[in-house]
């Protein structure tokens, strides 16, 4: 009996040993041949710093009262799948050269150059399939033989960079924008499949994906940022775009992720990993735990069909304190304006705001066929109000973000000037005719019709004033700039300015704005040299909280300076939003605070009188000697209730000037379209200051 038991034990242990050896051998093989290991590849952190880089010493002392720095944190280059399809050949290096003031070429051949260099810049290519499309396009690459690569082959050869290739290009964009085109999974037993599972890297499971190419594209983008970062003079950030959306309705949930230092993960965490921004934040939190801070900046909420600033989570569950805190930790800043429209507010949401109908883009981002995007939940003012309401209900405020602008250019080069506009998607909208500002010729109209038929797309032309115009790009515009108040032009200083929301947005011109709140600001002499020092002493700057001081009425200080090259300033407004303490009823109001030309604000309507600034549509000239080079004032809230939660932000308006579509028409010697705005009032927005009332003793339980 005993021997039998011993035999069984021996047999079982032998079996166990064999299994263990086999498993070990298998894993060894897997690791050596296919580098399969049990780890999360997205959490591997790499330092991209250039080792022997000559550091330019920055001996200019930091300014404790802070300087305004202007930049762009949303720039695509050839590494983005769509930019490549749009004919763009600009590299990240070209993009940084452009930001420093050098000239680079548009894919259609003309020159692009800034009037004055920018202070900071970040190349943020799409994380999804970063670098892959370029690889498909290269007929000599290992990917070139596959059927999915064929349509991309040599698409950007010199002679194909023409307006006629637009149909082919848009069709490729539609193919890729719809999910699945690039999903060519390996069979389940394939080692690549295991690798995908064991390294939590879903894209590896696709035959159309080459990890080496992907990683080196990302490393090249990081290297370009590192090479061009010059502390004290010019700041760059390593970043990318997380291009996700809701699975139904195509709600745009795009965000740019910006890293604080020369360190970054080995690969961008993209929509292949998840469509859910909450999982993006979880990933960013994990990186933060490893000592790498980053922020995500949502953009084009206007085209999200109301999904960007929902009152529930991605899963449809109620927002709770943890959600609000996580969102604010990861998303302190939102992009309010860019080429694809402005997301301040919508005329349907703010019917009493005379300036709400401004550069409205009312379609969903990337939707084909073009689809209307519902405004509620897609604009920042509405989001601020929703945030107050959620906070009132004890769910925390997930929408307490600051504001910047950026361009979202896909050319490496932002277009900030109405009189010299090149839009953003290269061959597709690089000429006035293709972006709908001058009528289509018969021949081009014919081409568009052919394209619609060939690729099963809706009609791409519209009849206005008896002429046909291309559709799709007339609601786009030459906007926006990101601006911060920072002690010096370095990564650390600018990143922490974004973190504390001491940031503002403009629609292109370098209009700068200061904004402070406190309970004793009217006592400051606004003509004293010590103005800003005192304001920091007695108040809080934009982006901050102002905690209630008994029943005291908050006072504000605003100060704006015009762009040297743009129109003069017309007025400064403060936009107030609040919810009542007795039921979270929202309200909003626009107050003119100071007018140009010595004009007085009407105390009942809170409006400035007309300052007489006009635009001559015949030649785009503007009235001379009207408007201000700078405006400053202190202001007290006239309808203040100390118990109501509230936010206040500044809007600075320039005198009207011609819109890009008018400039295009003028240059072509024709009349501008009657259905588009002919003029535009360029503007700047500050980040808000939130008024925090004394907490109530009553707990509110949402039913």
């Amino acid at each position, binding site marked *: 009996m005993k021997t039998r038991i011993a035999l069984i034990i021996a047999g079982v242990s032998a079996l166990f040993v064999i299994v263990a050896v086999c498993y070990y051998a298998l894993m060894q093989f897997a690791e050596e041949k296919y580098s399969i290991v049990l780890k999360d590849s997205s959490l591997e952190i790499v330092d991209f710093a250039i080792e022997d880089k000559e550091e330019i010493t920055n001996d200019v002392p930091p300014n404790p*009262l802070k300087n305004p720095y202007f930049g762009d944190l949303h720039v695509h280059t050839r590494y983005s799948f769509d930019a490549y399809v749009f004919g763009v050949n600009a590299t990240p290096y070209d993009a940084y050269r452009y930001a420093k003031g050098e000239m680079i070429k548009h894919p259609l051949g003309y020159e692009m150059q800034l009037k004055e260099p920018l202070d900071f810049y970040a190349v943020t290519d799409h994380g999804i399939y970063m670098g892959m499309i370029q690889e498909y396009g290269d007929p000599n690459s290992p990917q070139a033989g596959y059927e999915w690569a064929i349509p991309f082959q040599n698409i950007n050869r010199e002679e194909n960079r023409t307006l006629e290739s637009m149909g082919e290009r848009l069709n490729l964009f539609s193919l890729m924008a719809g999910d699945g085109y690039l999903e060519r999974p390996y069979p389940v037993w394939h080692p690549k499949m295991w690798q995908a599972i064991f390294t939590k890297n879903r894209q590896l499971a696709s035959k159309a994906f080459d990890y080496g190419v992907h990683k080196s594209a990302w490393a090249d983008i990081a290297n370009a940022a590192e090479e061009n970062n010059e502390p004290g003079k010019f700041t760059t950030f390593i970043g990318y775009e997380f291009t996700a959306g809701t699975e139904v309705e195509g709600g745009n949930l795009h965000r740019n992720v910006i890293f604080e230092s020369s360190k970054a993960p080995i690969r961008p965490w993209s929509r292949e990993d998840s469509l859910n921004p909450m999982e993006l934040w979880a990933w960013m939190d994990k990186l933060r735990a490893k000592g790498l801070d980053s922020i995500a900046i949502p953009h084009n909420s206007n085209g999200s069909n109301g999904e960007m600033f929902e009152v529930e989570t991605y899963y449809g569950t109620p927002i709770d304190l943890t959600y609000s805190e996580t969102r604010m930790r990861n998303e302190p800043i939102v992009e309010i304006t860019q080429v694809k429209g402005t997301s301040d507010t919508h005329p349907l949401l703010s019917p009493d705001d005379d300036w709400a109908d401004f550069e409205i883009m009312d379609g969903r981002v990337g939707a084909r066929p073009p689809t209307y995007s519902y405004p509620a939940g897609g604009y920042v003012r509405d989001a601020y109000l929703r945030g107050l309401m959620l906070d009132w209900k004890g769910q925390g405020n997930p929408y307490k973000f600051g504001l910047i602008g950026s361009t979202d250019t896909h050319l490496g080069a932002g277009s900030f000037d109405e009189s010299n506009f090149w839009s953003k998607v290269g061959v597709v909208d690089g000429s006035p005719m293709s972006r709908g500002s001058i009528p289509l010729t018969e021949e081009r109209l014919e081409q568009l019709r052919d394209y619609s038929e060939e690729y099963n797309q809706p009609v791409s032309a519209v009849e206005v004033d008896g002429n046909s115009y291309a559709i799709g790009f007339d609601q786009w515009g030459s906007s926006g700039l990101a601006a911060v108040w920072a002690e010096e032009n370095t990564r650390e200083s600018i990143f922490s300015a974004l973190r504390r929301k001491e940031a503002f947005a403009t629609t292109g011109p370098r209009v700068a704005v200061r904004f402070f709140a406190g309970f004793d600001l009217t006592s400051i002499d606004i003509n*004293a040299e010590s103005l800003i020092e005192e304001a920091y002493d007695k108040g809080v700057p934009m982006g901050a909280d102002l905690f209630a001081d008994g029943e005291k009425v908050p006072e504000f200080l605003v100060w704006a300076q015009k762009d040297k090259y743009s129109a003069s300033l017309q007025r400064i407004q403060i936009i107030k939003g609040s919810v009542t303490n007795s039921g979270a009823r929202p309200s909003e109001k626009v107050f003119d605070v100071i007018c140009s030309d010595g004009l007085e604000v009407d105390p009942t309507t809170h409006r400035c009188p007309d300052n007489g600034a006009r635009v001559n549509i015949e030649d785009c000239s503007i009235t001379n000697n009207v408007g201000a080079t700078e405006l400053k004032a202190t202001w007290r809230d006239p309808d203040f209730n100390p118990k109501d939660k509230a936010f206040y932000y500044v809007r600075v308006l320039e005198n009207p000037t011609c819109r890009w579509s008018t400039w295009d028409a003028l240059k072509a010697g024709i009349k501008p379209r009657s259905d588009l705005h002919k003029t535009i009032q360029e503007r700047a927005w500050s980040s808000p200051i939130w008024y925090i009332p004394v907490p109530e003793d009553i707990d509110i339980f949402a039913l």
Partner: protein
Amino acid sequence: MSLKPYLRIILFFLFGFIIYIADITMNYDEESKDIYISDQELDGLFAAWNSQVGRPPNEQEALNIVNDFIEEEILYREALRLGLDQNDRIIKRRLAQKISFLKQETDREEPSSKKLADFFDINKDKYYVPPTFSFTHFYFSQSPEAENKAKKALSEIVKFGAPSSSEPFFLGKNFSEYSLGEIEQAFGQELLIAFDNPALNQWIGPFSSSYGEHLLFINNKSLGYSPKFSEIEDLVRQDYMLQEQDRKISDYLDSIKSEYRVIINPTYEF
């Protein structure tokens, strides 16, 4: 009647195995013999015919074109399978060029310091450090009286050491080590006149900027200079390597360009 537990487990694995096998056999197609011709490719083929012959092909011709294309593809694949690409001098040369091109991109041989010094001499302008100014100012915002106010303030400074009134400037009061470019960015081009051989350490003005009138006190001017080669050798090396890379690529392009014929539609209108 229920099955014994271990039978259920066996059945479970058996079904799993069958599904697994089925999946493998149905989804695996790496070595397929399909020839996929996309619409774009067909368009391209017919457009090429059209461009050569001057009219679109008729049905028979279209069939011939597609057949030729398919045969070419089949022969190409069969040739690859038989290894005919090996020991072919044309293919060899082409591949050799490819690899050398790749190498040129990655090759990072250390340049001699003589080369670097020459490079530095040629590009001296690029490394020139421009002159900078440190200054403070009194500001009078744009208005018809601004100039008079500024003049009055200047006389007050001369008499009492400080003006009776002035205004805060948006970008602050003191500016340290600003180059002319930075001054232009902060104040506008008009103010540059003030920095053309200025008198140092005394109040001068008024000067106009884009924003109004200024009285300036320039207390330091650091002369522009060309740094010594030894100080910035690393920077020069970086730039040299970058330039070498560009040069190698353009050399390669030049050498290969002559093989191409460029065809542009002579009647094309933009």
